[in-house]
């Protein structure tokens, strides 16, 4: 068979060869998925989705940290001054602008995921002895991110405000997180 002949004629065999190859590639790609997806959070991890916290003992000005989905959650009972300071800064320029009112359900209870949005450290500021940064909220010691007392990022490498988890007040003293 001449070379020219081979180039010109698309044979039935060429079609079958290409078709089979393409289908094998699709099948191969589909077969990879279970091997990758097994690494995603499993059913038992997902099942630990919500917790209930009794906030009765947390006095004004105090804060507690609870563990939710393997991460710390900050619950701070804010003072009137802290709320006022957070609201006063609502119009100030910041990396991730948000109003204090949009970050709380009840003004005196600030509930945040205590994980720095930079590289995942736990910022200090829950204990009275902690360094709370330039804006009186939290300070992440790892790479120097400063959060204000609404948990908004004000200075440092973190791109976003501390996340607000989904929560609801079951009663005045019990909050369900998740």
């Amino acid at each position, binding site marked *: 068979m001449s070379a020219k002949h081979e180039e010109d004629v698309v044979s039935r065999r060429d079609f079958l060869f290409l078709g089979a190859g393409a289908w094998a590639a699709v099948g191969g790609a589909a077969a990879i998925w279970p091997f990758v997806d097994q690494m995603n959070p499993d059913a038992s*991890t997902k099942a630990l989705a919500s917790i209930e916290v009794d906030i009765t003992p947390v006095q004004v000005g105090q804060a507690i940290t609870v563990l939710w989905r393997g*991460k710390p959650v900050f619950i701070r009972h804010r003072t009137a001054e802290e709320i006022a300071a957070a609201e006063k800064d609502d119009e100030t320029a910041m990396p991730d602008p948000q109003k204090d009112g949009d970050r709380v359900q009840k003004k005196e209870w600030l509930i945040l995921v205590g994980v720095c949005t*930079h590289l*995942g450290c736990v910022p200090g500021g829950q204990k009275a002895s902690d360094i709370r940064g330039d804006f009186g909220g939290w300070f992440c010691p*790892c790479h120097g991110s400063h959060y204000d007392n609404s948990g908004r990022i004000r200075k440092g*490498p973190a791109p976003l405000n501390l996340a607000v988890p989904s929560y609801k007040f079951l009663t005045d003293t019990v909050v369900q997180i998740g």
Partner: protein
Amino acid sequence: MAHESVYTPNSGIEKWLDERLPIIRLGVDFMAMPTPRNLNYWWTFGGILFFFLMVQIITGIILAMHYIPHESMAFDSVEHIVRDVNWGDMLQNMHSNGASFFFIAVYIHILRGMYYGSYKAPREMLWILGVIIYVLMMASGFLGYVLPWGQMSLWGATVITNLFSAIPFVGGAITELLWGGYAVGQPTLNRFFSLHYLMPLILFAFVGLHIWALHVVGSNNPDGIEIKLKEDSLPFHSYFSMKDAFAMVLFAMIYVYFVFFMPDYMGHPDNYVRANPMVTPPHIVPEWYFLPFYAILRAIPDKLFGVIFMFAAIAIVAFLPWLDTSRVRSMRYRPTAKLFFWGFVATGLLLGYLGAKPAEGGYVIASRILTAYWFLYFIVALPLLGWTQKTKTLPGSITEAVLGKDAMKNNK
């Protein structure tokens, strides 16, 4: 460097085997590689690295016999190895210090290649394979450091895995995939153990390719000129195998001094505190061998660009063969480039120092200046120096470099 086979089977059984599986021939010819006679002691670190790969594999297999990859048992199981297992303290310290000395040796090996231009044609593939091996070593070192499940293990793992969260759109999904949860936890520890055990298999394969490539192109040498005369080279065995073995013994003496007398010198005390997901230690630092790159990460005030610059600082090394435009390989004959090279070494050391300091004030400013030098060395200094520098005259041959011109004349 392809050469004639030097093997002659003598006994009947050797002849029989050689016709069926010429494995002795392969080994003998492999060890007979013509090697430049002027290699100095900086060339012994390849062999030293192979020694440490074997140390890590052997001690690692043993540690895995006693270690438990569970968040509530991992920390205790490492203490159990150190306190209860027969010879466990020695074996665990050999493995943890072995990682550090592996990196000391690889940094010397890389800088030797940079100084003597070992990455230049025709050794580009050899160089790139080396960079891949280095990256695999870093992955292996990071995964292994997580396993004792101390505070630095947990928070180091948190910071490093969070680097991927900087990727736009899919970052969050990727970190959850890596963690197998919503934070570093039990699934993460378990898979890191599995992957840490996988690493040496991959490393070993790449080391094989690296040595194969070496045998195709041959060793570079301190004068950076190719073998031309018969007397320029000597067979690798026994001339250089013995030199390598001698250097290995000296280096191993320093290593075992650390293992026996100061095993925690290069570790961090916080890793003797059990992992606690509620409290981040005030100063998180990675293992010392990551510190220069950690300093670059923190020098950039933006999350995504910090991550990009950190990875780029490593990746750029792979492009050295094309960034360095000089036709003269060795810094011995490049007086100006030599100054910039030592500037680069100083930059690496200072960045390592800064990576261990808190990210504030003057430390950040210094990190930024040095980060700039790191990149400018590769993308400005080396390309321009190749065109503008005045190089010294290269010797006519390796033998001439060793014996001098007069001796060459007398020979003739």
